[in-house]
């Protein structure tokens, strides 16, 4: 009996740690994705803000925004692949849309002009705020 319980506990632990095993994203896993997305967007916004103020170098802005874009693309791919329970579908869909938008904006940030950087910083801040709101609602 104890062995069975331990087995069930292990499966529960594995499912909660590796949601892909269940084929579905639960609220917690979805909230993690929202957190990752918020992080990439907020960091991109900070980088864009520094670029507007002339605080960064061209090379660093291009390379670091490319790293952040990789993170956003990964989140986007995972969200697009994921399934979730019906009540969480709208949030999953919305997060996927934000992730796609953040990826595009971060790609543009690498080679943007000063004026464009200002607009991109605004967009990234808005995306971070929305991802945070969704993440909080999922907790």
């Amino acid at each position, binding site marked *: 009996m104890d062995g069975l319980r331990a087995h069930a506990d292990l499966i529960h632990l594995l499912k909660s740690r590796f949601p892909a095993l269940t084929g579905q994203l639960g609220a917690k896993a979805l909230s993690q994705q929202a957190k990752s997305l918020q*992080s990439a967007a*907020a960091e991109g*916004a900070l980088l864009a803000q520094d670029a507007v103020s002339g*605080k*960064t*170098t061209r090379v660093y802005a291009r390379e670091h925004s490319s790293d952040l874009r990789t*993170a956003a693309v990964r989140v986007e791919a995972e969200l697009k692949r994921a399934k979730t329970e019906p009540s969480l579908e709208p949030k999953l869909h919305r997060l996927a849309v934000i992730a796609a938008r953040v990826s595009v904006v971060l790609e543009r940030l690498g080679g943007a002009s000063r004026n464009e950087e200002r607009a991109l910083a605004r967009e990234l801040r808005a995306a971070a705020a929305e991802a945070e709101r969704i993440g909080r609602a999922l907790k």
Partner: protein
Amino acid sequence: MSLKNVLAVALGIMSAIGGFVDIGDLVFNTQAGATFGFQLLWVVVVGVVGIIVYSEMCGRASAFAERPVFDLVRERAGFGAGLATLVASEVVNLMTCAAEIGGLAICLRLLSGLPYRLLIPLAVLGLVLASWVLPFRWIERVFGYLGLGLLVFAVAAIKLHPNWGHVAHGFVPGSHAGGSLTVYLYFVVGLLGAAMTPYEVYFYSSGVVEDRWGLKDLRLNKVTAIIGYSLGGFLSFALMIVAGVLFLPRGISPQFLGTPALGAEHALGQIGLLLALVGILFAVGGAAIETSFAGAYNLAQFFGWRWGKKERPAKASRFTLSWLVIFALALLLVMTGYDPVKLTEYSVIFSVVALPLTYLPILLVANDRTYMGANTNGKLANFLGGLYLILIVVIALAAIPLLLLTNGGQG
């Protein structure tokens, strides 16, 4: 103390400050600050005192016995225990060396814009050349001094105007807010592991022999360990404070080595960014050499080969081949494309598991009159050594479960 000695101490301390921070400290201090603000500053203090206690012991043992500590460990602990220590430390050294090389290539990419995969072999080539050409003392100094660029984080921390009351509160262990208890404990373990990495004591003790320290240098050993590591700890504080002020309120979870540099950039502009990147470059470059050498030192000292930078490469051929092979294996590991930041997290956590194997034999040797004569541990060194040993065993047992439970600190 003559002016020459004061200068020697100052130079030693400066290189110890610049050489204290490696990729593990950069990753864990920044992530801890971004997750818990200043609440984990006390852990850095605990870690720094631990590395001071054991480095001083190692330095004293090596200076008195005129033999490096791994040599003494193998003799004192016997072949079986010595071999287990050797295997564990070599695995951790290799992982850490690979992480540092990956970090070096990332830094070069952020400075030059050249492709990462091209920069990895170039970085290794540069490290091999520096290791081959420079004498031991100059390897320590060049990388240590240029690693002082990291002091820019101390300036950035001040310029970002943290709430100093909250910062002071962070030095007092207590309840936490802003994340789960398991994530908090994961960072406690990671920060201790990053501060007390085994390769640092092996490199330090072999350095004592390379620099030909003797009994007359016992005070120099104490001063260098205490002041050098303490001031190096300030860099860790600065990294955590910058992350706590800048990243935590914005919900940024640092996943890239370029993120800490963003903190210096935001506070100080382009000059801050460049100093941070150069500081990181030399800090991780120096640590890559230290890990490859620590690995070669351990092998050579365990098997009784001729070793040391003071020897001609042909005379200490197996030692020279060992550090070259460690660089080559680390190069292969990084070329697989595995994320250096993730590799850092794993190397630090696995180094925590290996900590008791490193520190218990050192404590035994430091209490053995056969090796230490009248210079065995005093009451304070034994009290602190024993206390840290208990702490090390506890965190070694907790490290892997916490890594799994928190999904590497993600919660």
